[in-house]
Structure formats: structure tokens, C-alpha cells
């Protein structure tokens, strides 16, 4: 973000506690000192107000990068995002653009309880006019965030609380930009395709490693973008492996996996040896108690079981 702030004077950051407090998760640490109050703006607690403000400012040429502290709070601003940001370019006959980025961490961590642990990326992946990105590695995150900031359309950039501490290879001094709308096969395999995004990609990679020892070759497709969705990469992979499992942190019904499963059966029906299975959150408001909270969220164990089910002959429908 610092690099983009330095590169383009129209870029500015906006959000609660991002300046003086240096970000509730320290993502914007040091930026206020470096760039000043005009470029790093601390907002009052008014998501609908400041997201709408960012959209209006974007219409006049600014490129705001708005932080929503966690995706749970995005709901108060959803009217501005869905009814304005995503539609302004189209319904005004192409006369205006909204080059705004909304960054927000999704998924629960620890015992944050029901209203602080949700995943709503599918609500935005649903909307024409928005782009939704969900990287899983530091390299992808940097390249895609750059792409998002430089994109002239509104982008929802999904981060993950649990991934903030991850370390990974990122080239220094390289102004690389990754294309929005392209998935990546993070691990080649032949027996089963696991489709994932964000934190679940990391889980999928771990499980793939384990299953390797049991003789199952898992191909992991990291979506990186939820909208546009790279259906080609997903379908090509399933045509190769003939089995698919989706792992997602959001709730089972009507989640991202539902769209993936529908796509696969539409475009690769004859290639499937088993139904497309989904590993997702249990459909309850997330309970506080540690054991309950853990049991409600999808984990490595669940994915492993599901993969094995899919790989067994005539895999049955599996649900936790």
C-alpha cells in the first residue's frame, strides 16, 4: 500500500484506526508517519458514511482504499457497495467510474463469537459490477492488491485474520501486478482436485501433503479471484482428475462452493467419477466456547475425510 501511495497521489487510505492506532491488525503500521493525514485518513465509526464518501470521491477521480476492520462490519455499508459502487458505471451509461478498493479480513479466528467471525465474500461475488479478490499467499496478496488499486472498477479485497502472520517469498523492487480473474494451480495432482481460496488454500495444501503419503495425488486450485471466477482452470483440472472437493470457510448452503459445484457439473459432467463435495462451515451462528467454535469451522481433518470419501469408489454425499 505504501508503494501505491508513493506512486499515485490520488491514492488514499481510509478506515477506522488505520492511522494513529496503526491499524487494528497493524496492516497500516507506519503509513501515517510516512504519508501524513491527508493520505491516511482515520474515520469515525460510520461505515455506510465513509464507504459512500469514498465512492463519491472515486467518482471525481480519487482512488480510495477503504479498510473495513472486519467483514462483519461491511454489512452496514452494503447498500452503498451494492446499490452504488457496483452499478454507477453501468446505469449512467458508462459516464462515471468508481476506482475504489475495499479491503477487509474475512473468516473467524479464535473465539470472537457470532458477529465477529463471519465470511461474506459470496455476498459480493454475487454482484455484477464488483470484482472480488481473495489471495492466499504474500506474493499473491501484493500483486493482486496492486492490481486492485490500479483497477478502475470497485474491488472487494478479501484478507484473512489468520493469514496476516504468514511469511512468504515476495520479490523486492519488482513492480509486478497479477491479473484479476485468474486462478492458480498451487499443487499439481492427478487423483482429485481441491478448490479453495484464502485461508482454506493453506489448509488444502497441508492436507494434500498428508494425503500424498497415503498415495493420493491432490491437485490444489487456488481461486485467488471469486469474481470474475476462473471457471476454465477449475474445469480443466477436474477433467484431468475426475473428482472435486471444495473447501470454504463460509457456510455450506449458498456459499462459494455452491457456485463451483454448479460450474463443474455443468461443464465437466461426463468427466466426474463422484459428486462434487463441499467442506464448509456448519450452519450455526458461531458459538463462543472454544470446542464448539472449532467444531463449527472446517479444518484439515474434515477436508481429509472428504477427500477420502470422494476418492473411494462411488463416493457418497458427505456432510459433517
Amino acid at each position: 500500500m505504501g508503494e501505491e501511495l508513493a506512486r499515485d497521489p490520488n491514492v488514499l487510505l481510509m478506515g477506522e484506526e488505520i492511522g494513529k492506532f496503526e491499524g487494528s491488525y497493524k496492516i497500516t503500521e507506519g503509513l501515517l508517519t510516512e504519508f501524513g493525514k491527508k493520505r491516511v485518513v482515520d474515520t469515525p465509526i460510520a461505515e455506510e458514511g465513509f464507504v459512500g464518501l469514498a465512492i463519491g470521491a472515486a467518482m471525481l477521480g480519487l482512488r480510495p482504499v477503504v479498510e473495513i476492520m472486519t467483514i462483519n462490519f461491511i454489512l452496514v455499508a452494503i447498500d452503498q457497495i451494492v446499490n452504488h459502487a457496483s452499478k454507477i458505471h453501468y446505469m449512467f451509461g458508462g459516464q462515471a467510474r468508481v476506482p475504489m478498493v475495499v479491503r477487509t479480513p474475512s473468516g473467524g479466528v479464535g473465539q470472537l463469537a457470532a458477529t465477529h467471525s463471519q465470511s461474506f465474500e459470496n455476498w459480493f461475488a454475487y454482484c455484477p459490477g464488483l470484482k472480488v479478490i481473495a489471495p492466499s499467499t504474500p506474493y499473491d496478496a501484493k500483486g493482486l492488491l496492486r492490481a486492485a488499486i490500479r483497477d478502475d472498477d470497485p474491488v472487494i479485497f478479501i484478507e484473512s485474520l489468520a493469514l496476516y502472520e504468514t511469511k512468504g517469498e515476495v520479490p523486492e523492487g519488482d513492480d509486478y501486478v497479477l491479473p484479476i480473474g485468474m486462478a492458480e494451480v498451487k499443487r499439481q495432482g492427478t487423483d482429485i482436485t481441491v478448490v479453495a481460496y484464502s485461508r482454506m488454500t493453506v489448509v488444502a495444501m497441508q492436507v494434500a501433503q498428508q494425503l500424498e503419503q497415503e498415495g493420493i495425488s491432490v491437485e490444489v486450485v487456488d481461486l485467488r479471484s471469486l469474481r470474475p471466477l476462473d471457471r476454465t482452470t477449475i474445469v480443466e483440472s477436474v477433467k484431468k482428475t475426475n473428482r472435486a472437493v471444495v473447501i470454504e470457510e463460509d457456510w455450506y448452503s449458498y456459499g462459494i462452493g455452491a457456485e463451483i459445484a454448479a460450474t463443474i457439473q455443468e461443464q465437466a459432467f461426463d468427466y466426474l467419477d463422484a459428486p462434487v463435495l463441499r467442506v464448509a462451515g456448519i450452519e450455526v451462528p458461531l458459538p463462543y466456547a472454544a470446542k464448539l467454535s472449532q467444531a463449527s469451522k472446517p479444518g484439515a481433518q474434515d477436508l481429509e475425510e472428504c477427500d477420502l470419501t470422494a476418492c473411494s469408489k462411488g463416493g457418497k454425499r458427505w456432510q459433517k
Partner: protein
Amino acid sequence: MAKSTKSQEVDVAENGRPALTGEDPAQLRDYYYNMLLLRRFEERAGEMYTKAKIGGYCHLNLGEEATIVGLMAALTPDDYIFTNYREHGYIIARGIEPGPVMAELFGKETGVSRGRGGSMHLFDAKAHFMGGYAIVGGQVPLATGAAYALRYQERPGVVLCQVGDATTNIGAWYESLNLAALWDLPVLFFIVNNGFGMGTTVAEGSSEPDLWKKGSAFRIHGEQVDGTDVIEVRDTVKRLRERAEKEHKPAILDVTSFRFRGHSVIDPDRYRDQDEVKRERARQDPIPTVRQAAHRRPHRRRGLAEGDRRPGSSRRSRRRSTSPRRAPTRRSKTYLTLCTPRPCRTHPAAPRRSRWPSRWGAR
């Protein structure tokens, strides 16, 4: 939070309406032309809706002509405008030709939003007319953001955010007021107060029915303005606009007017007493006063009776509102030169025996 303080006493005519003396007649004629254009356009739009040429919703500005024309007379080309869905009059008064506006209502590619927006989503980038929003209060944070951009980029101009009276009850309104005051943004919150949010009166919706006071929680200055007085609207907007541009202070204008018809074309308006509506339409119609003042001439022998129709005027406006602008016809050229010392032979009140040479020969 003072009410509007007028720099001079406003002349009031016999019917209780502003007499508009002391204003430049040429200027008044321009206002009259535009107000009549809006009136005729909106009447025609209503008609087209009933003929199914216009679909969806259609909200008309009938009765609000003075508010709109006065407002636009005060704004500059640098300013940006955000409105709600009752916006046909605003984009036309801002300078966009009626043809493309009606085309948009008809859903044509030649419309201002290329047929993608419709009645509620008109837009013109060059005129800084930023839409046209159908979610009540949705435009308020957007307008506040546009003002933010003006300050960020150190550009001249202010943002005009038009809303209805009922909009002042929704959350986005309050959050925007807070941000505008907190960050010193050059935005004017222009409440078109026709007393109703659909069928709900102001008092039924707002615990504080004096809407100009609603800025006090945010230390935002507010004033009430008579929306049927085109000059008062213009002068108040001018003053508060300058204050916003120079001092970066937002303001609220509570502009009272009367909604002639129902909420939209399909609203049978059963929640209002129709006798009272008829009376108020006659009493609060802003056009007759402006017409009278616009044609006030020092040497006339007979004054115009109130409500008198000039034979040329309405027809000309009607023609213009439904077809692309054409070169003025000979008749309309005549009309425009009326009050320069040349008589119009078609007007009944024109002097029959004039000191000035008639272009059609002596009468």
C-alpha cells in the same frame, strides 16, 4: 441556526406571493422560460407514462419549478450536483437539452444514460450532474465524498446534494452530516420540503419537523427558504454556496414547496384532501408571479391580469420540450424581442398605437 435573513424586504403582491420587483426583467424572463419548460416537460412526461412510453417509476417536479430554477441560477459550472429520483427538472435546468432527457425516459440509446438508467438515474458528466439515485438517502454520502475530492484536489466549486424531506430520517443522512462537518466539506444539503414522504407527512416522520434544525447536532448551519420564490432560492443558495466554497462550511437548506400531484405518476394521492390540493396549487404555483414580473413594462397601458396566458409562450415551450432544439422560428424571435421597444402584434395587451415603428407596418 437563524432563519433566512433577507438583505432587503421582499415585496409581496396582493395574492401573498412574492412580487419580485427590483429584479432585471430579462433575467426574470429567462427564469420564466425555464420554469415553464420544466412545467411542460413534466406534464408531457406524465402523459407519456400513461401512454406506456415511459415505464417503471416516474416522479414529477410539478410545483417545484421555482426551487429548481432558482437553485441552478446560483450554481456554477464547477459545482457538482447529486439528486434523488425526482430529478427531470434538475438536469434540464442545469442545461441539458430536454430531448435526450425524454429519450432516457423512453429507454433509448440516445438518452442521457444511454437508456441504462431511466427516470431515476439521469447523468451528465460534462454538466457535473452526477445522478439520479433511487435509494432514499443513498446520494448523501456520495455527495459528501465528491466534496471531499474537491478539497483533496484543491479545486473550486461546491457539491449540491438535493434530498426530499423524508430523507432526513435515514441513517446515511446523519452519517454524512457528521463527516461533512468533521472534515469541513464544501457541500450544501438542499432539502426539497414538499411536506410529504410519499404519504407520510413531515411531522409523522420526523421528531424534529423543523428540518433546517437537523444540523444542530453537527453544528451545521441551517436555514428555511420559501421554495416558491425563485429569487429567494437563488440568493440563499448563492450566499451559502460562497460560504461553503471559501470557508469549507456545509449548510442545510430547508426549501419549502408544494407537490402538485402524487408521489409518482401512479399515485392516486388519496391521502391528501383534493380540495385543499387544488387550492394550494393555485396559491403556491410559482409560475404566474414570475410571468407577471417578467413582462412588467414601464410604458404599458394595460397590465396583465393574473393568470393571463400569453398565446405564444406555452406553445413554444411545449414544442421545445418534446423535440430537439431547433433554430428559433420567426414567431419565437418576435416573442423574445417583446420587451425591447418593439410591439408584438399577436399579443392582446400590446399597445395598438405605438410610438415605435412596427415591423409589420403601422397599425
